[in-house]
């Protein structure tokens, strides 16, 4: 059967089969099941060179010296580039998607284990890897900040010494809700339950690691980048800034992607290195990281230390929820976009419950860990918010010696209340029927309903602004 016939059969079958029963055949499957997918590492261009990245073996260290002469002298090696060389061209730092900057290659010091220090371009990938071992870097090891709870201590080593006037590891603060009104409700409540919740860092680990192939046409001045990207448009804008090319001269191609889960939204230094390699050699340059590099240096998820507080009456009426979050953003703030934060965490942390008041405050800090923080909807921080609120309701049920399902049923927003309550009313009304469910289904429904709110959060932007998260003054202070 040819691929075209497969597809015809697929469409005919789709007319007859219900969605979600494994019979909805997909257009791309005929090539995937034949091994004819088109992933970045499948691309071979004439004269293509291979790039490998040298990474820091420690979390925090000053670079004393880098000697590349031996690596440079290897017969198959075309190019060895260090941070100092990039700095001469003004290319050592790149903007992140979160109004921060990130080192393409480290110049002054390394800030997390696995950080990019130098790269080699060679005729094949084995030769490029070999040459990495011949680069001699002398480091002066500095104390690292690994525990997020110690990042703001007065004697904590300052990680972002590259930011002018930076004297601590504070990254930004966000808040939403009415702190005073929430405090007033807590003051009058019969019962207050407080719980510290640590939600550790995880890695999305897509099956395909990150990589790119860059090709620069010097005659037309056009750059083409095939890359493992979930956000090619954002990438193009950044490359325009870094490479100094207008956007219409840059073509970013995101071919088949071997899984992403948010891991392939941020812009990683390796992509930029492949562009620099192509610009300097005049040849197409491929960079594919290995699994260890993927796990140690690319975007993560979670890494939240949350304090949750819930206030209720003795008979089980939930009155208010409050949370303080300490967020570990790693060495550079590379989250997809901070504007999404209120839409996610702030839109969901109140759950599906009928509350009198709520307040959330978040402090983000720098640590000597890999940057990122965008995976599994994690730039929205939905998962954390749902876990927080449902965990707090469970803890409250335990303290009140109540059935957690009964407690939830009693506090879910009723449809008849929804209309007059708040700007979210029209959204919450949609999930009102959840309150009529019985048994354990109701608890699940509230979790699912929270997700519905999340899906509809873009609508919040057209509602009155009194509930919106707002950036604190100072959130923009870390501009380069």
């Amino acid at each position: 059967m040819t691929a075209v016939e497969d597809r015809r059969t697929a469409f005919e079958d789709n007319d007859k089969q219900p969605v979600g029963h494994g019979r909805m055949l997909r257009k791309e499957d005929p090539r995937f099941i034949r091994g004819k997918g088109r992933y970045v590492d499948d691309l071979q261009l004439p004269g293509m060179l291979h790039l490998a990245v040298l990474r820091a073996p420690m979390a925090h260290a000053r670079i004393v010296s880098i000697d590349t002469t031996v690596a440079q002298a290897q017969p198959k090696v075309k190019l060895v580039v260090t941070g100092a060389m990039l700095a001469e061209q003004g290319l050592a730092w790149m903007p992140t998607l979160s109004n921060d900057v990130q080192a393409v290659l480290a110049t002054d010091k390394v800030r997390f284990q696995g950080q990019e220090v130098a790269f080699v371009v060679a005729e094949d990938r084995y030769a490029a890897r070999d040459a990495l071992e011949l680069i001699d870097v002398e480091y002066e090891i500095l104390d690292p900040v690994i525990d997020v709870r110690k990042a703001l201590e007065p004697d904590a080593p300052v990680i972002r010494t590259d930011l002018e006037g930076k004297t601590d590891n504070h990254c930004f603060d966000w808040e939403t809700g009415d702190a005073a009104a929430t405090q007033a409700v807590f003051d009058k409540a019969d019962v207050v339950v407080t719980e510290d919740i640590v939600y550790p860092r995880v890695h999305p680990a897509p099956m395909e690691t990150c990589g790119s192939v860059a090709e620069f046409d010097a005659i037309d001045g056009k750059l083409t980048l095939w890359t493992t990207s979930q956000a090619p448009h954002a990438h193009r804008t950044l490359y325009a800034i870094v490479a100094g090319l207008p956007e219409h001269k840059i073509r970013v191609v995101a071919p088949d992607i071997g899984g992403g889960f948010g891991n392939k939204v941020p812009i990683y230094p390796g992509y930029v290195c492949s562009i620099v390699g192509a610009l300097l050699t005049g040849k197409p340059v491929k960079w594919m990281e290995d699994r260890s590099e993927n796990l140690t240096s690319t975007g993560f998820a979670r890494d939240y230390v949350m304090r949750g507080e819930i206030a209720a009456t003795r008979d089980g009426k939930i009155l208010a929820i409050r949370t303080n979050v300490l967020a570990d953003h790693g060495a550079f703030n590379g989250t997809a976009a901070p504007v999404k934060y209120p839409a996610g965490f702030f839109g969901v942390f109140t759950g599906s419950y009928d509350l009198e008041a709520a307040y959330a405050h978040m402090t983000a800090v720098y640590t000597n860990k890999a940057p990122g923080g965008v995976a599994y909807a994690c730039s929205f921080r939905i998962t954390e918010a749902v876990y927080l609120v449902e965990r707090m309701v469970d803890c409250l049920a335990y303290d009140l010696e109540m059935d957690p399902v009964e407690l939830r049923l009693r506090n879910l927003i009723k449809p008849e209340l929804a209309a007059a309550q708040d700007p979210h009313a029209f959204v919450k009304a949609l999930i009102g029927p959840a309150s009529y469910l019985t048994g354990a289904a109701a608890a699940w429904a509230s979790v699912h309903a929270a997700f519905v709110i999340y899906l509809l959060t873009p609508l919040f932007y057209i509602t009155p602004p009194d509930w919106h998260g707002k950036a604190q003054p100072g959130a923009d202070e870390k501009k380069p």
Partner: protein
Amino acid sequence: MRVTMTVNGEEVTREIEGRLLLVHFLRDDLGLTGTHWGCDTSNCGTCVVWLDNEPVKSCTVLAAMAGGHEVRTVEGLERNGELDPIQRGFMECHGLQCGFCTPGMMMTTRALLDRNPDPTQQEIREAISGQICRCTGYATIVRSVQWAAAEEAGTRTVLEDAPMEGVS
């Protein structure tokens, strides 16, 4: 060094470095990019091919070790223009999403069906225990293999509403 092997029924001879991995030989030298490179350490199974009909992880086999042997890759599953039932099973039962683990999954489970034409769900899960899929959660992969087994046995309709273990 010079190496000669049979790949998907065709004899190939190439001059290679002694340390070249079979996965890179297949992908970069022969252009058979259906076999993927996922972890380098025999953990993920995206690189599974057959060496003399035995599934191996080609990221941990030197190309030189395949010299004189018969290699079959995902590109060699389809024969005489006919898809293998395992390929149709994956398509029918949504045994893939991003498709990156799929070639390895299919090579392993085709080998399973050759040895055990009617595997239980547990046997299928054991067979793919050396392979990772991050998209599907495995339930549809198991179902795909069952679909192929039933197709080959001519009993496919029996499976339509078979309950799945571990799937709510």
